[in-house]
C-alpha cells in the first residue's frame, strides 16, 4: 500500500504541476493573473471533443490543434482586452475572471453538461510496478511533466523569446530599454500560458469526463499551488506541487479522503502566515508586512 501511495502521490504532484505551470508562467512574465485559466482548460477539453467526435479528426491531430487554438485565444485575450488594462491589477483580474465565467457558462448554456464528454486515452494498458498497476495515461502525464519542465528551462535560457521573457520578468523598464516590446512579450506569455493549460487539459482529461465545473476546480488548484510556491517562480510551482500533491495523497490514505482538501488549505494558510510571498516568491512588500 505504501508503494502504491507513493506512486499515485507522484502522479498527483505532477498533475498539479502541469495544471499550475501555465498560470505561473503568465504571471511571472507579465504580472497578469489570468483568472480565465480554468475556463481555457475546459475550452481545450470540449474543443478537442468536438474536433474528435463531430468533425471526425484523428486524436493526434485534434489535440495539438486544440492546444494551438487555445494559445491563439490566450494571445487574443491579451491583444483585445488586457492590453487596455495593463498595469491595473484588479481590473486585469476582473476582466479575466469575467471572460472565464463567460466561457464556462457558455458551454453550460450550450448543454455541455452531460456525462458523455470524454477523451480517449493515448495508449491503453497499465504498467505493473511492485505490485501496483499504473495506467499508461498517468505514466505519460509524469513523463510529460518532466519533459515540459526541462523544455521550459531550456526555452527560457537558450531561445530569444525565452530570454525576452526573463528580461521582462526581471525588470520591465530595463527590458524596454533593450528594445523588448513588453506588450508583445505579454501577449506571447498569455499565449504560452494558455497553451500549457490546454496541454495539461488534453493529457489529464482522458482520465475522467469533461465537466464545465472543472474550470473552477482547475483555477483553484493552480492558484493554490502558485500561492504556496510563490507566484512567478517556476521552481516554486514544482516544489509546491510536490508538497501539496504528496501531502494530499498520503493524508487521504492514512487519515481519510476528506482530508485532501483540508491539507491544501492548511498548506496555503501556513505559507501565507510565515512567507506571504510563497516559498520561492520574490514579492518583498508582502514579506515586509510580517
Amino acid at each position, binding site marked *: *500500500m505504501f508503494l*502504491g*501511495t507513493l506512486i*499515485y502521490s507522484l*502522479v*498527483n504532484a505532477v*498533475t498539479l504541476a502541469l495544471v499550475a505551470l501555465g498560470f505561473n508562467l503568465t504571471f511571472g512574465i507579465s504580472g497578469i493573473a489570468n483568472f480565465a485559466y480554468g475556463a481555457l482548460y475546459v475550452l481545450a477539453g470540449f474543443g478537442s471533443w468536438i474536433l474528435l467526435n463531430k468533425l471526425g479528426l484523428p486524436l493526434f491531430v485534434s489535440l495539438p490543434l486544440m492546444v494551438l487554438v487555445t494559445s491563439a485565444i490566450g494571445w487574443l485575450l491579451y491583444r483585445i482586452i488586457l492590453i487596455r488594462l495593463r498595469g491595473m491589477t484588479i481590473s486585469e483580474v476582473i476582466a479575466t475572471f469575467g471572460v472565464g465565467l463567460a466561457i464556462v*457558462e457558455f458551454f*453550460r448554456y450550450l*448543454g455541455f*453538461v*452531460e*456525462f*458523455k*464528454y*470524454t477523451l*480517449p486515452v493515448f495508449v491503453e494498458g*497499465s504498467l505493473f510496478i511492485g505490485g*501496483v*498497476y*499504473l*495506467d499508461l*495515461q*498517468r505514466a505519460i502525464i509524469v513523463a510529460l511533466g518532466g519533459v515540459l519542465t526541462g523544455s521550459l528551462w531550456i526555452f527560457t535560457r537558450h531561445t530569444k523569446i525565452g530570454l525576452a521573457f526573463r528580461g521582462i520578468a526581471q525588470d520591465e523598464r530595463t527590458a524596454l530599454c533593450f528594445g523588448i516590446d513588453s506588450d508583445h512579450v505579454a501577449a506571447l506569455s498569455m499565449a504560452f500560458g494558455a497553451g500549457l493549460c490546454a496541454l495539461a487539459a488534453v493529457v489529464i482529461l482522458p*482520465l*475522467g*469526463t*469533461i*465537466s*464545465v*465545473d*472543472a474550470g*473552477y*476546480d482547475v483555477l483553484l488548484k493552480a492558484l493554490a499551488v502558485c500561492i504556496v510556491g510563490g507566484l512567478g517562480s517556476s521552481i516554486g510551482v514544482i516544489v509546491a506541487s510536490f508538497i501539496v500533491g504528496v501531502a*494530499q*495523497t498520503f493524508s*487521504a*490514505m492514512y487519515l*481519510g*479522503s*476528506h482530508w*485532501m*482538501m483540508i491539507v491544501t488549505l492548511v498548506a496555503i494558510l501556513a505559507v501565507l502566515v510565515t512567507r506571504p510571498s510563497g516559498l520561492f516568491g520574490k514579492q518583498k512588500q508582502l514579506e515586509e508586512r510580517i
Partner: protein
Amino acid sequence: MKRSIRVWLATVFALCLGSLAPQPLLAAGETGPIILGVPTSLGFTSGKECLNSVVLATEEINSKGGVNVGGTQRKFQVESIDIRDAAPGVPVPEALLGLEKIILDKKAKAILVGPFRSEALLAGMDIIAKHKVPMLGTIAMTPASEDKIKQDPDKYKYIFRVGINVKYFVGYQLGIMKQLKESFGFNKVFIMHQDVLWARGGAKAFGDALQNQGWTLLGTEAYPTGASDFSPGLLKAQAGAAQVILPIFDMPEAGILVKQWQSMKVPALMAGIIVPLAGSEAWKAFEGKIAGVLNMVFEIGSVPVPKVPQSVHYFEAYKKRWGVEVQEQHGPAPAYDSVYVLAKAIETAGTLDPDRLTDALKKTDYKGAIGTIKFDPQTNQAIFGNDPTQTAVGCMIQWREGGKRVVIYPDAIAEDKIVLPSWMKAAK
C-alpha cells in the same frame, strides 16, 4: 389654468378612477394557463432532463385540451429558472432567491422538480410553506425533509416528493447486496462516497445495515465534490481484498473512479450508484470498459422496463420529443409523472386552492412511468417498493458486453440474474 395642465390633471384623475374599479369576478389569470414552476439546477443533466420531462408531459396534457379546473379547461404553462444550487460554491440563500422569484414573479401555482441539493430543499421548505404553493419534488433525496413535515405537518403539508429518497435506494442496494452474498458468497465490501448530505446519509445507512447482514465493512471513504484521484480508496479496497466496492456518487468526476478502478485492475465488483454510468451513452463514453458494473437506476422510466408499459411509453416519448434518450437515472421519470399527478389532483379538487389541492394530492393513486404513485400520509413521500402494481419502483441494472443495460433487480421486473464478469470468481 392652462389647458395643458387641465388635460394632465384629467388624465391622472381618470387613471386613479380606473385603478379603483372593481376587479372582474374571473381575473384574466384565472382563465389563462396554469403556471408550473420548475426551479432547479438546469445546468446539470438531471435538472435539464427533468425540465424536458415536465415540458413533454405538459405538451401531452395540453394537446388533449388541458386540465379541467372546476368546469373550465385550462392549459399548463411551464416557467423555469436555474437556481444553480448544485453548482459548487453557490450559497444556498442565493439559490433560494430563484425559488421565491418563480413563485412571486411568475405566479407559479405549483412547483415541480424543485431544488437539486438536499441542503437547498431543506432551506426552501419554509419558502414553500410561506407562499403555500404545492411542490412535487423529484431530485433532492434527504429524509430530513420528511422529518420536518412530520414535526409540523400543517405548515409543510404542501411539500411532496415523487422521486425516491435515500431510505428507499438504500433498500434496493441492500437487496442487491443480499443477492451477491447468497449467489456468490461475497462478504467483504468497501464504501466510497461523495461528501454531500444525501451520499453521507446513504453511506452510513449502508455501512450499518451491511454489517448487520454479516458483511465485513473494510472501510468508508468520503470524497469532496470535484475530487480527481480515487487511488487511496481503491488501494485500500485492494489491500483489504474487497469483493464489492459500493460507490455513491453523482458528480461527473466519478467517471475517473470507474476508469481508475479499471486501470488499477482492482478485483472487486463495482455495485452502487455512479450517476455517469446510468445512461445509455455511458457505454461509448467509457469505451465499453464498464461491462459487469451494477448501477442503480433510482426510478424506472430512465430505463424502459418491459413489464411496466408506461415506463416504455415515457422512454420512447422522451426520445421522440427531444431526439436523445434519457440519460439521468434519477429525476426525469418522476418529473414526467408529477405533471400527471398534479393534473389529476387539480381535476379531483376542482380548484387551484393550495389547501384543497394538497388534500387531493395526498389521495393520489396513479399508475405512471415509475410504477404506482401513492404518498405516505405522514411524510408526503412517494412509496417505493418492489412491485410496480403497488408502488413506485427503482431498479438495479448490470452493464453487459455490447452496451446493453439489463435489469437484474427487483425480481418483479428483472430481465436476468447477476452475471459475474469473466475476471471475477465467486467466493463459493
